[in-house]
């Protein structure tokens, strides 16, 4: 329970505490700041008893930092990995969803024909779920808020029967006018999308520092541009879905989720259950990318249906449901004004943005990166969030920053052109050495190294010589770059237990989840390093609220930096206990022992024993360690940085853009496993490439319906689109951040992709690209305007 009074500021940060005396015991529960998805939250943290020595760059590490294979790869390549989509329970029913065929209006349902069909066991309608609300909307509401909204669920013995049942539900819609885009929602006399109006009550959100009017007055060069970004769809290959099963008053749910504990509290609250009567499990997961951060509509529906029908129920979105009703990255319109001195020094950054949110979701907004990325004394951003009759937004890999970077970095590139300055040089001249928006230091910042090494690898400075080397006369080559910043410091609370088994194998238990990022492997590496165990003897167990200690959602690129230190502390405690036991067996002092690769040895002697031997001699005595994540350092911002360099070829006859090469240099502190980190980096670059070139939800404004809710029509990158990607990490451990030195890395690399590619396209065709995706027709249109 949250304490009523805000606790005092932390007594200490990551540094070692003064030894407590009875008279002067520091408070045990303190407040600390944690940045999650760009939002800073204050969290309570229980100060850990144990604060391991930070692993700095000089630390001798053997397993951490090693390119070991993904530990669950065998399961994944043999088909043995069990995803939520693969969970089958005895007697399980399958649900199919009936969705709204219009963007607004009132629906009347006739389910009698569906109930009469073979194999259909029951339906859920509004009356079954009254009071359950998502994104401020009643689940299965008969008032239609967007096309694709669930109206009713049909449960049957097999999925095909459930679908046939769903098709037999008669839906009558009493139509009402809709507003599915900004123009419609902001027009005079627009239909009311939400009862309190079409503009979010918190809009416009104004954030400023300095005096932009004075900054613009001082400017020698001013540019103003308008940028547009599309609604992008996460399109994880495993759709949202859950299986629910009741045993008396206790509910078990398997869900494809990024947050088992969030899902548990959402379900417990909605169903009026105690938290200990809800168990949420998730083993393997086919991607999330931000859209699976709590109980999904599918989970509520499965739970209620299973209770009503007395059998386990699977409810999962089909692909069309996933592409219309599973969250999205908001579109933006960004009007940007930059003021600068002739030498490139920024004097003012002004953003006026409008963001259609859909029916709800949180207000990520493109504005924050304008305050964070470059040095400038005068910055003002204004963001207006508008409700539309479309599905709610959900955070999508670096939400806000990815959209904002397209505006900010494109404008910066335009300014460089205006000033006749190299875009990289312009950024160097406006290098921020502290977090200006919060007036704090950075834990570490090696963006300069990203700039230098990225440019070197790319051959940025001799790009002019490569310009002419295209294959055909109608193909033009261009080069562009952009940078990023993202909060990846993680923070408490996060807990882990490390348990040694009798044969010396170790279990790492923590309620985090692996979305495909590699958390399972990385956490095992941290534990193996600390224990001095063989990596193959360490297993990470994730994703079960009943059996595992709390860890937060896997979002905001925080898992390694949040849970990693807890695992290390737990493993250290287990190792210390093990050494105490082994010291007697080896006839040595505890401080003389060290362990590596599964062997405990006595310094300066030949005496050794394996961890397995020690554990075996202990019989059923179980060596266990508990660990938790300590507070973040005070008055410190803990970001990750990166710089991307893109090379493209543009066919000026067809307008087709081919990305030839992306060099991506990143600073994310210590990298626990470079191979897996590079996989994340490449994946983010490819998602960014899709955002830059193809991905766009298209709506028919007149009908209010989605036009491309399939993977055929909503284009995500294919293997044929993948460019050469050279992604790498610079710098080393950030020991101010936390004692593992690691920071987040999954989101930053999507941020600079679109503006870097846009700059390269502009460079190739001699016309700026104000809108993504840069489809052939948009490229041709810009070419035409440019003459």
């Amino acid at each position, binding site marked *: 329970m949250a304490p009523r009074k805000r606790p005092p500021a932390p007594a200490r940060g990551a540094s070692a505490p003064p030894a407590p005396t009875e008279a002067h015991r520091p408070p045990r529960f303190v407040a600390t700041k944690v940045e999650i998805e760009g939002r800073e939250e204050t969290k309570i943290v229980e100060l850990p008893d144990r604060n391991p020595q930070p692993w700095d760059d000089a630390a001798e590490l053997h397993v951490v930092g090693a390119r070991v294979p993904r530990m669950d790869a065998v399961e994944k*390549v043999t088909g043995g990995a069990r995803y939520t989509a693969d969970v089958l329970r005895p007697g399980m029913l399958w649900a199919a969803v009936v969705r709204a065929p219009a963007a607004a209006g009132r629906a009347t349902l006739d389910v009698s024909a569906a109930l009469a069909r073979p194999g259909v066991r029951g339906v859920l309608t509004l009356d079954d779920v009254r009071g359950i609300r998502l994104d401020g909307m009643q689940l299965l509401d008969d008032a239609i808020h967007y096309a694709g909204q669930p109206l009713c669920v049909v449960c049957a013995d097999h999925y095909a029967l459930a679908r046939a049942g769903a098709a037999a539900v008669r839906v009558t819609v009493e139509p009402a006018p809709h507003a599915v885009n900004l123009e419609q929602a902001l027009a005079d006399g627009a239909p009311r999308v939400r009862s309190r109006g079409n503009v979010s009550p918190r809009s416009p959100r104004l954030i400023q520092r300095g005096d932009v009017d004075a900054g613009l007055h001082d400017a020698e060069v001013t540019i103003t541009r308008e940028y547009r970004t599309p609604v992008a769809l996460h399109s994880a290959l*495993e759709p949202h879905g859950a299986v629910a099963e009741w045993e008396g008053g206790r509910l078990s749910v398997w869900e494809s989720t990024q947050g088992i504990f969030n899902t548990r509290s959402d379900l417990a609250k909605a169903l009026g259950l105690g938290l200990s009567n809800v168990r949420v499990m998730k083993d393997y997961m086919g991607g999330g990318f931000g859209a699976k951060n709590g109980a999904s509509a599918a989970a509520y529906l499965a739970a209620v249906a299973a209770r009503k029908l007395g059998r386990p129920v699977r409810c999962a979105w089909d*692909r069309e449901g996933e592409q219309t009703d599973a969250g999205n990255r908001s579109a933006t319109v960004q009007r940007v004004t930059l003021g600068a001195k002739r030498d490139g020094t920024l004097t003012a950054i002004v953003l006026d943005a409008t963001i259609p949110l859909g029916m709800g979701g949180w207000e990520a907004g493109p504005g924050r990166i304008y305050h964070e990325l470059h040095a400038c004394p005068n910055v003002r951003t204004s963001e207006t969030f508008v409700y539309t009759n479309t599905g709610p937004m959900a955070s999508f890999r670096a939400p806000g920053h990815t959209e904002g970077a397209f505006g900010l970095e494109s404008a910066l590139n335009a300014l460089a052109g205006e000033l006749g300055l190299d875009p990289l040089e312009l950024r160097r001249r406006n290098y921020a050495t502290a977090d200006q928006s919060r007036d704090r230091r950075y834990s570490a910042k090696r963006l300069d190294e990203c700039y230098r090494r990225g440019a070197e690898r790319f051959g940025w400075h001799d790009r002019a010589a490569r310009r002419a080397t295209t294959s055909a006369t109608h193909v033009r080559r261009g080069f562009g770059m952009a940078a990023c910043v993202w909060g990846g410091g993680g923070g408490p609370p996060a807990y882990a237990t490390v348990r040694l088994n009798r044969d010396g194998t170790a279990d790492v238990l923590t309620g985090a989840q692996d979305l495909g990022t590699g958390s399972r492997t990385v956490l095992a590496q941290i534990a193996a390093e600390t224990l001095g165990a063989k990596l193959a003897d360490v297993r990470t167990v994730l994703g079960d609220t009943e059996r595992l200690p709390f860890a937060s959602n896997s979002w905001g690129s925080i898992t390694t930096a949040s849970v990693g230190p807890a695992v290390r502390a737990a493993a250290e405690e287990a190792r210390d206990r093990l050494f105490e036991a082994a010291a007697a067996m080896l006839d040595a002092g505890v401080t003389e022992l060290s362990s590596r690769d599964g062997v405990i040895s006595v310094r300066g002697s030949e005496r050794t024993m394996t961890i397995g031997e020690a554990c075996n001699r202990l019989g059923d005595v179980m060596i266990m360690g508990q660990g938790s994540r300590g507070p973040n350092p005070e008055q410190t911002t803990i970001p990750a940085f990166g710089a991307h360099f893109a090379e493209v070829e543009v066919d000026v006859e067809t307008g087709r853009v081919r990305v030839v090469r992306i060099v991506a240099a990143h600073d994310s502190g210590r990298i626990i496993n470079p191979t897996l980190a590079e996989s994340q980096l490449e994946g983010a670059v490819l998602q960014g490439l899709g955002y830059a070139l193809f991905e766009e939800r298209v709506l028919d404004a007149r009908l209010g319906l989605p036009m491309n809710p*399939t993977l055929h029509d909503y284009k995500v990158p294919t293997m044929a689109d993948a460019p050469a990607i050279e992604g790498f990490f610079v710098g080393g451990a950030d020991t101010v951040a936390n004692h593992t030195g690691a920071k987040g890395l999954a989101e930053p690399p999507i941020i600079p992709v679109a503006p870097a590619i846009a700059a390269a396209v502009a460079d190739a065709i001699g016309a700026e690209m104000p809108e993504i995706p840069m489809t052939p027709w948009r490229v041709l249109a810009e070419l035409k305007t440019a003459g």
Partner: protein
Amino acid sequence: MRLTVNGQPYDLAIAGHESLVAILRGRLGLTGTKVACGRGECGACTVLIDGKPAYACLTLAAACEGAAVSTIEGLGAAERLHALQQAFIAHDALQCGFCTPGQIMAAAALLAQTPRPTEAEVRHGMSGNLCRCGAYPKIVRAVLDAAQRLEAARGA
């Protein structure tokens, strides 16, 4: 009807409308084959029917009477990994792994047809298999590497 999956014959009563993937996953418990779209757009459900790649979501089970169906489970087990599976692990050609069985089966079909593909042939031949995690660069490398491993094994 009789369905042969990974060399094992099954006698099943199958309704005319049931898809092969529904039978594999729902009745035979072979959940390695995934469904991500159910409409022939992503390749997650790729299996081999008489050695040829097919989208199991669009294939009627009843049409497979007498045919030999191979799924990821039949390709190689943990103790005896197929060269493609080994290469996918070695190159970290997967993240969430949801597309991976389909990718591997598509690659197996490609290598059966074209034992020594060029990089362009791999990219072209496998562009029907989507990977939202973006493992493509490493998948290309894994497939080319597996082709070499298989070639070496044949030569030996």
